């Protein structure tokens, strides 16, 4: 299964490092990544393969959410099927 991870927040040094560090820690493989900074706002989207995730996916979601809160970022994780079904015919 692939998950889409989005990170939105005020830009600062090391956001990608933090997020990708957590992914690596739990064997979540990043397949694709794109990011932009508009004014001082940072927006990043990652597509990650979570099949080999070393912990339960739901726990990983909690860890990411907690990390977001600690760093003043909004982090969302959603199943890629949501986007495929909503935005493609």
């Amino acid at each position, binding site marked *: 299964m692939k998950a889409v991870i989005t990170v939105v927040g005020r830009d600062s040094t090391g956001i990608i490092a933090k997020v990708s560090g957590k992914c690596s820690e739990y064997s979540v493989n990043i397949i*694709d990544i794109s990011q932009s900074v508009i004014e001082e706002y940072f927006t990043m*989207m990652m597509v990650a393969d979570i099949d080999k995730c070393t912990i339960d996916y739901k726990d990983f979601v909690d860890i990411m959410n907690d990390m977001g809160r600690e760093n003043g970022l909004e982090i*969302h994780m959603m199943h*890629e*099927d949501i986007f495929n079904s909503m935005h493609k015919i």
Partner: protein
Amino acid sequence: MSMIKMDDVLETINMIKEENLDIRTTTMGISLYDCVCDDDDRFAQKVYDKITTSAKDLVKVGCDIEKEYGIPIINKRVSVTPLSMVGGAISPEGYIKAAKAMDRAAAEVGINFIGGFGALVQKGMSQSACKLISVIPEALAETKMVCSSVNVASTKAGINMNAIIEMGSVIKRTAYLTKDEGSIGCAKLVVFANVPEDNPFVAGAFHGVGEAERVINVGVSGPGVVASAIKRAGNCDLLELAEIIKKTAFKITRMGQLVAKEAAKRLGVEFGIVDLSLAPTPAVGDSVAHILEGMGLESVGACGTTACLAMLNDAVKKGGVMASSSVGGLSGAFIPVSEDAGMIDAVRKGALSLEKLEAMTAVCSVGLDMIAVPGDTPEAVICGLIADEISIGVANTKTTAVRVIPVHGKGVGEEIDFGGLLGVAPIMPISPYSPKEFILRGGRIPAPIHSLKN
């Protein structure tokens, strides 16, 4: 680059976070056919066992999907075979015991409402239906989560006025028995015409006679998403507006379809239908009235409201139908008064009357929903209100319903706060003139002709 576009992702997240997009309900329909029994206590036990075994994983699966997919699923619910169809051999007291068993089962599996304490009596009333209907007030007063619905009319059968007379009395007694909680029992009781048998929304949910053993039906929501899309569209003409609503409804429904199929798969039951309804909640930004106002009405209830609602309802259906392999239930815009912040405001300021609401129900889903009237409204007037609303459904081959609350001890100008999803209902004025002689003629209004249409 991935096939998933950043814009789409941000749009979706915005819909969920800012515009209250959610799956309003995941409802498991459960057949009670195998619970038939001629002993009151054993019947109640069988109903309890069937529900608790069938739906034991419903809440867990709902929560899992919610987390994995990142989409809120607000309610998990159960609907069962109309109890009067399987309880023919038990006593009226047995029906109350069964209602309590349903309530306990609902608590055990962790859901917040359970539908199906009801009967279909559009053409006539069986003994079994008679017994059940006679104890609806007690059943609703002595349970928390049980919902009841009675179908009193259909386009094929006509209108069973005898059943409406019964329901007038049932509603008044329910209001009285639950008077300490603002007559809340009536908020869990719906009188229908042309009731859909796969509706996932309470209070009218039940598991129809021709349904599978177990089934998952999903109701999507998203008035806030539609309202925002309309706002973004700015000053466009009505054809363009209809297109925007269609596209938005498509996206919302696709999400419902995805969740419904996934939930059905994980629970090992059949996927039933997606109900394409725009279901409001009292929360700010989750109002159908505000969509209509966003389309250009100064207030819902103004002249033009019916046209506006007809267009909204039609566009929602057109967008949604393509997005799901199986559409059913009520599918349309809901206009409950107490559950919609915009409707509440319109009633408070006198912009929206009962009569206008009745007209609106001719072109949208459901009917006179969550309407509070004075507690001293005579039974015959309640029956007249039901008969009017039901006639709209029968004549137009659509579902209509009445969920009216004659709030005991309260009058026009007062309000009743049910709390939570049921919201706040201002008591609305209702015509004091009596339809008693007409109603008490009893019998049945024949099925309408469907040619010579004018």
